């Protein structure tokens, strides 16, 4: 990764286009989805045929409002749609229905987490301001072949929420962290699926550079249509380096629209950026302005899930989880809720539960062929809690718990049933155990270790535990062995 010289600052703003999770299109009732035959998901409204009128999809509006509530934005009483006029065949009407002056969402903030110095250490947190988000229609897909271009209008009219940030991001890492956080919020709230392989999230990336300490922003370029988080990161790195090189050589930066070639990892100039008035925006006469009732806003507010990082803080501060486990769990709302259901069944040891969920359970779910979704997990949250409880009570050792876990995963049986069937219950009979320990301690071969322990070498006691566990065939409770051994050795 090329480093930005310390006397320069990179300023980034993003426009993120997200396809909302609806069944029908935003102004038409045509269905939409990925991977259909070209032009199979088109109706007369999508094509803008004479005599058709657009009608706004309630679900699209509510998903947009829900996003606003997730990021703590204002939901204005009124939103309205405008025509953005341009001549390009990706849109059959020669205009795109969008929101210019009265967007559905105004303001808001997205908390981001930067990578820490290591995986176990949490990185810096930052808050990124959202300028607004507006609800518009997606456009068709063009492919260029030979002397002509071919158009598939399946994507035309798909509900698209354009989320516009303030220029608050300062590095490629911050842009990447922002997109990860945004995707988590959108998917966890059920606003969008954000499947980038299917083009459900695309990004325009505004980049400028300035000398550190300058109050004025530099001239920015806009790189359009980036369809992966890595493309955004690479574009920022490339564009910042290019602009610093140009300015360093005494040249100026042209305000231009650019494209990104991911294969060659380089940017290129697209058409000159048209002035905003060239689009001749005007209020769409077919769609009246919409009043969004406060009752609707209040109802949707109840659907807002706990913020990802609020949840992470709660896990670390209230439940005492290590950061590594907490960060894994909160990244997936379903997983976090599964974990919480298990903790509810055994509240005494959240870390023990987290450890099994974030490590063993996730590992086995993903390693299965084909991978098993959490919804089809063979172990129920309460059953996993039962396993942790048996370990905590000293009925089985941690080592045995791993074995029981594997058996639970394979058979779906309860932990206690497996422990009994396999005769794994640890020996907690003090009298019998004490007898064994006294015999082991009396053996001359361990005299040296005993002397070392008594001389203050704490670790020397471990040399005695091996023979004791061997004599009990591993069934002795390690905690009890330790306790008795220390008492006997005085």
């Amino acid at each position, binding site marked *: 990764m090329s480093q930005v010289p310390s006397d320069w600052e990179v300023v980034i703003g993003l426009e993120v286009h997200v396809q909302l999770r*609806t*069944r*029908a299109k935003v102004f*038409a*009732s*045509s*269905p939409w989805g990925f991977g259909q*035959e*070209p*032009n*199979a*998901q*088109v*109706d*007369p409204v999508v*094509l803008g045929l004479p005599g058709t009128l657009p*009608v*706004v*999809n*309630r*679900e*699209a*509006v509510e998903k947009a409002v829900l996003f606003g509530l997730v990021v703590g934005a204002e939901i204005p009483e*009124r939103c309205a749609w405008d025509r953005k006029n341009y*001549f*390009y*065949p990706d849109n059959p009407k020669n205009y795109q229905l969008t929101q210019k002056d009265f967007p559905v969402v105004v303001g808001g903030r997205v908390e981001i987490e930067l990578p820490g110095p290591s995986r176990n250490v949490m990185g810096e947190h930052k808050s990124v301001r959202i300028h607004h988000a507006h609800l518009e229609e997606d456009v068709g897909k*063009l*492919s*260029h072949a*030979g*002397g*002509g*271009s*071919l*158009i*598939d*209008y399946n994507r035309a009219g798909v509900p698209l929420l354009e989320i516009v940030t303030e220029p608050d991001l300062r590095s490629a890492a911050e842009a990447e962290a922002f997109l990860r956080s945004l995707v988590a919020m959108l998917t966890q709230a059920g606003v969008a699926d954000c499947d980038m392989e299917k083009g459900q999230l695309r990004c325009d990336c505004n980049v400028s550079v300035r000398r550190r300490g300058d109050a004025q922003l530099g001239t920015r370029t806009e790189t359009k249509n980036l369809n992966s988080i890595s493309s955004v990161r690479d574009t920022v790195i490339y564009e910042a380096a290019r602009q610093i090189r140009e300015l360093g050589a005494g040249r100026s930066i042209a305000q231009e629209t650019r*494209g990104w*070639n991911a294969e060659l990892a380089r940017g*290129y100039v*697209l*058409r000159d950026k048209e002035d905003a008035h*060239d689009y001749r925006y005007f209020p769409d006469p077919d769609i*009246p*302005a*919409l*009043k*969004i*009732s406060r009752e*609707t806003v209040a109802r949707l507010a109840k659907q807002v899930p706990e913020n990802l990082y609020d949840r992470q803080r709660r896990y670390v501060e209230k439940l005492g989880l290590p950061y590594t486990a907490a960060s894994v769990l909160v990244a997936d709302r379903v997983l976090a809720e599964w974990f919480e259901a298990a903790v509810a069944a055994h509240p005494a040891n959240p870390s023990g539960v987290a450890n099994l969920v974030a490590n063993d359970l996730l590992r086995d779910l993903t390693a299965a062929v084909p991978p098993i979704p959490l919804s089809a997990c063979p172990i129920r949250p309460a059953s996993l809690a039962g396993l942790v409880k048996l370990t905590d009570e000293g009925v089985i050792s941690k080592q045995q718990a791993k074995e029981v876990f594997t058996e639970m995963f394979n058979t779906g049986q309860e932990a206690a049933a497996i422990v009994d069937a396999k005769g794994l219950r640890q020996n907690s009979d003090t009298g019998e155990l004490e007898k064994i320990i006294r015999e082991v301690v009396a053996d001359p071969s361990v005299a040296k270790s005993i002397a070392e322990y008594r001389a203050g070498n704490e670790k020397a006691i471990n040399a005695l535990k091996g023979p004791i566990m061997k004599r009990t065939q591993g069934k002795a409770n390690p905690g009890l062995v330790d306790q008795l051994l220390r008492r006997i050795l005085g």
Partner: protein
Amino acid sequence: MAEGFDIDHLAKLARLSLTAEEKALYASQLGQILGHFQTLAQADLPATADGARVVDESVLRSDEPGPILGAEVVTRIAPASRDGQIAVPRVVDDES
């Protein structure tokens, strides 16, 4: 250039190639039209709420997928088509 607009720029946006005479004629006509709107804009009207153009959520459509035309119809009503897609003269937005 007439006041408030640039006839060459407008012609370019509208993909029109105009002769000098046409430019003069349209610039004059467009100037008159804009002048008329300026007169309207100066009229002393009571401030009316634009509430007449605001509707509530009852007019929204439910998220129920409806009928489609089908690719066969879509391509048939298009001026030209190929491989189930609508064909147009080549428009390029690629890396050049």
